[in-house]
């Protein structure tokens, strides 16, 4: 069965410091995409970063980067120079093995940024 596991329900980081959010998953697909979404208190779901599984190079978007380890099925998100606006729920997601072409989400990590 497909799973997405975020083992850290809550994390905190000092402003300007770096934090890493963990995500592990299981899929029988060989080529797929992985996504990190951010949900601030406004509830809006915002795409942070995505990674294509067959690319060895880790994706980077400004202060956000991933550590993708395909063999270990691990997809962690690193936030550098944390800002107050980074405080949010963060969800890891992968496409399902069935044909819905949607995204299957983890349970999320709540990130608090301490001034």
């Amino acid at each position: 069965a497909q799973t997405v596991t975020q083992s850290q329900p809550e994390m905190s980081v000092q402003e300007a410091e770096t934090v890493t959010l963990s995500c592990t998953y299981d899929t029988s697909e060989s080529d797929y995409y992985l996504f990190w979404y951010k949900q601030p208190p406004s509830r809006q779901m915002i795409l942070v970063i995505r990674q294509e599984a067959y690319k060895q190079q880790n994706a980077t978007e400004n202060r956000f980067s991933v550590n993708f380890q395909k063999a270990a099925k691990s997809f962690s998100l690193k936030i550098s120079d944390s800002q107050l606006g980074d405080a949010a729920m963060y969800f890891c997601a992968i496409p399902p093995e069935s044909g819905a072409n949607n995204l299957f989400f983890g349970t999320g990590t709540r990130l608090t940024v301490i001034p």
Partner: protein
Amino acid sequence: NAGVTQTPKFRILKIGQSMTLQCAQDMNHNYMYWYRQDPGMGLKLIYYSVGAGITDKGEVPNGYNVSRSTTEDFPLRLELAAPSQTSVYFCATKQGATNEKLFFGSGTQLSVL
């Protein structure tokens, strides 16, 4: 550019009442989805549609119905509201490819009392 519009933003229902959550998109996307997000949890797929006239069940379809008569609209119907349906409901769309991101509406907070 409106993107994905959900109405209403908040609603309180009594047990047994019915209602329709509206979702409209102006991006001409083929795929549309309804998710629910329970407190402290991730999003679970209720129903989805790959185009006008085509709908299918997701992970948690019981107690809901959908229709897709046009590309733009994908309403979600609750026929007999139950407290277990208290949740935040999100509509999302994408054009179709697996590498594309989902575009989300701002959600509907529904409480069933």
